[in-house]
């Protein structure tokens, strides 16, 4: 039973008199606990796809099912509630509230939902353990490094146990060492929490952590790369780079 299913989705934008097909019929399914990376050159439609999967935008045609719920025909409010309960977001620029400390930032989605954050104490503690910031839980974002901020952002996206976690270039604003740690963290959240993760990236090293890499070009899936689960990281990277070269040629 897939947790996410995209059925023949198309997205068109109007640019002056011209209509641009950002997505031209995309189909795929994601199983629970799967770690998927979406890659492609700029303008390939990967950001558009991420927006549609997260219910931030709706497709011109086709449908998206997230945890058995169709996202295509939702009202603005229902889409918001669907995001609140089923989607976790991680952004390139962390987007933490500077006025809240790490713990409060993590609990923000719970508070927005009007729930008592005290009931999430165990969940919070296990997430703080996961991201390794137990001792910095009361620090404000400006007292945390970029990598630490991104870890807090990941914990925030996981607090509500969403059906999927969507990450938009999560390592794009970090040095390579910190970026590696963040990808490892996402990997662990898949393995330890059975969390479904979808990452949009143009960094092959980041994509190598995924179970599966979907390549987009001109709004279409051109390759769905699924390496064997026991394939070493370096071999995966080689496979991904090879595919990229093939696509670019």
């Amino acid at each position, binding site marked *: 039973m897939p947790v996410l299913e995209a059925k023949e989705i198309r997205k068109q934008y109007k640019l002056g008199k011209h209509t641009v097909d950002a997505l031209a019929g995309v189909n795929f399914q994601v199983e629970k606990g799967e770690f998927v990376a979406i890659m492609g050159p700029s303008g390939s439609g990967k*950001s558009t796809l991420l*927006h549609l999967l*997260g219910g*931030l*935008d709706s497709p011109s045609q086709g449908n998206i099912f997230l945890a058995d719920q169709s996202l295509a025909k939702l009202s*603005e*409010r229902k889409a*918001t*509630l669907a*995001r*609140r*309960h089923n*989607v*976790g*977001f991680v*952004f*390139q*620029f962390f*987007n933490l*509230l*500077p*006025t*809240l400390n790490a713990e*409060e930032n993590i609990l*923000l*989605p719970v*508070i*927005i*939902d*009007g729930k008592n*954050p005290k009931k999430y104490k165990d969940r919070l503690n296990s997430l703080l353990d996961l991201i390794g910031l137990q001792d910095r839980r009361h620090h404000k974002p400006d007292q945390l490094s970029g990598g630490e901020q991104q870890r807090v952002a990941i914990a*925030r*996206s996981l607090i509500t146990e969403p059906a999927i976690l969507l990450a*938009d270039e999560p390592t794009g*604003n970090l040095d390579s060492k910190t970026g590696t740690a963040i990808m490892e963290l996402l990997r662990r959240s898949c393995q330890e929490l059975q969390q479904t993760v979808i990452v949009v990236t143009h960094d092959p090293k980041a994509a190598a952590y995924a179970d599966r890499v979907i390549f987009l070009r001109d709004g279409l899936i051109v390759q769905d790369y699924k390496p064997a689960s026991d394939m070493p990281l370096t071999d995966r990277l080689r496979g991904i780079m090879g595919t990229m070269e093939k696509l670019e040629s």
Partner: protein
Amino acid sequence: MRLTRLLTFRSIRSRSFRFLLSAFGIILGVAGLLAIRSTNQAALGSISKLFESTSGRAKLTVASAATDETGFSIRALKDVSKVDGIQVASPFVKAQSDLADDTKSDTLDIGLFGTNSGGLLLHGILPAQEQLIRDYKLVAGRFLSDDPEVREVVLVESFAEDEKVVVGDLIEIITPNGVKELKVVGLVSRDGPGQTNNGNFGIIPLETAQQMFNRGSDIDQIDIVPVNQNPTTKELAALRDALQAEMGRDYSVTYPSGQGQRMTQMLQNYQIGLNFMSGIALFVGAFLIYNAFAMTVVERTREFGMLRTIGMTRGQVTGQVFIEAAMLGVLGAGLGVGLGIVLARGLTRLMEIILNQQIGTVAISPADMTLSIGLGVGVTFLAAGIPAWQAGRISPMEALRVRGKSKEGWVIRFGWIGGLLMLAGSIYLLILNPFSYDVQFRLGSMTVFGLFTGATLLIPATVGVWEFIARPVMKLIYGASGNLGSRNIQRSRVRTTLTVAALMVGVAMVIMVRGMTESFAGDLRTWINAYLGGDIYVTSSVKLRSDIGDRIESTEGVAAVTPIRYFNVDWRTPAGETEKLNFMAMDVRAYTTVTNFVFSGDQTDPDTAVNRLADEPTVFISSVLAEKYNLKVGDTVNLKSRSGYREFEIVGVVVDFYNQGLVVQGGWETMRRYFGIDDASTFYVKVEPGVSVDRVQNFIESEYGKRYHLTIIANDSIRGQVTDLMDQAFSMFDVMALISIVVGSLGVVNTLTMSVIERTREIGMLRAIGTTRGQVVKMVLAEAALMGVIGGLLGIATGIVLARILFIGMTTMSGYQLTFTLPPQAIWLSLVIALIVSQVAAIPPALRAARVRILEAVQYE
């Protein structure tokens, strides 16, 4: 609540200073409204209380019908007693006097609405009857004995203290028969009837007064208490009619409280002006709040976007902004109430000066408090409405965007159309509607908001044009950085617009206040100069015989002297109502040698008018009366002379603001013949050219000062006094305008700081390729200067329109006919202020920009 605590409270705390500053508009508006309302109520209350307590239980008064200067025989008491339903009829005689050794001779008890008689006012009374009418609070000694002829006096405590008099002392007073002695037998407190003539008041037995002041058996007034002490309006009117019928047309029977109405009217005119200003302060407050919230929403776009992404609904986002608005409103209203209480004290003092009348303590009524707080919070909510709605509309995708791209949608593209319509609409409404009535005026003041909003909406579309015109100037002043800075202004037009708008409002306020103040003060000065003609002003707290003028005229160095006499006269208006006017009589020809008439308009031939006024029973009327009652030269006014109502032809319309402009002027002969008065209130003295005014003043002082108990003042010092008084009255307005400019400057700091933060990377790049710190500073200053120029010019334009409108409204309602003047210096000054404010406000962000570290900046997100 938890969400509010985490999001809104924290966000406020992180920018608490700005939050507090944006509350300023509301604080000012609320404080102004509250202070004005409560001070005014206190003033009105104390005036009506004064008249109530000075008239005591008297429900009707009988006085001579001719003028209120001449008395009538005490035999009239008999006629009064013929009427049924009267319990007490108490006669009294008024006598204006002064202490013979009073040393206060070089100050004039002056108020904006006229002078007080000062001196010592004595009432000759019948002790038994008087005590049935008025409650004197005896604080020392005893009341007058029943012996009608004994030379005793009861004084007001405060007067006695000032003059260092105690019970048992003999005081010397000035009378037409020379200095006479009275024994002080008692002191009464300065409330109730003790407030008469500001406490410069005493009572003596009736016959003593008649003898000492040559009044024979005359009295001035009979106070009537009906048997039914709480009559209905109808019953009282019936009694009044019965009395009037019995007494005949030589007497006038009136309600005593009617005397308070004139003062009430004056006060209301001043209140209209102040109320308008606090109304505008609230509007400006609303505007600044809108500005502050719009800025916050722009600033927090990414944050709201992120919150929307993780599942916050539109309603929740809008709700949070509204909660912030509510807090700001409550805070602003709360602080406003505090400031209002302080302001009320100052305003009370000001009112006391203006009215020359003591006002009791100001009590802030719960109703006023509720109204002010309600208005403050309500206005904040309204102003925050649009930004709150906009915050809810922020797309969650904003969170995913790279920083610095704020959406500039339809407002930029089409806002100017709406702006132009609003501008045209509000100007049209304002011109079409001359605010003849209060309600219309209040509605009209709403369009002020339309005017500001319209002008604001024009800014984004025109920024490009402004920038294009100003760029060469900026380049000239700030060099190459000026060019860059100038261009930067177009980058975030929403923010630029809000900043420019805030400056515009501030400058407009300054222009408006200056325009109004100058128009009022300018005309008042012209009038005062003519009104206080000559070089020396001679007056007295006792009556002046005309021959004193001749003596002064014979003094060496005196070129001319003219006597002036003021008295009240009943006037039957064209509508058939009776109103009290002030009659100013003068020796017309002498008057023209000392000073000149200020004719209103050019429809009168001055020479003919002056000759006719001197030789015929004709009058000049004030422009206020002419305008209010649509009277012109050739018409007549129906005045109550000593032989009943009589038509006097109008031969001129003059500018005269004395007594709120309710003035007619006439010749000496006219006064003598038709009103039976022959003494002077004042002499104007003109000194020969080249002769020292001081020397002549000293001479008159030493020769006649003591003998006739004169107060002799150089006109320059009175003009100084009056100017000070006007400045005090107008200073309130200036303060309000200045604060709005300061708040406007905050917008500049905000905008530029945000721009600098956003452009950190760009500034780093500029520094990397060799831009010096100084150049970076100049770049930011140039951007600010341009905003200052646009804000200043737009402020001047809207300010002139507003000043005009306010002027029309104020003149129409107050009845003052003034010439609109707006000195060019005021315009230049406000432009300079806008520029200076913009430059000073730009210093912190400019320094911040200069401190940007190149390496960090190029790595900046």
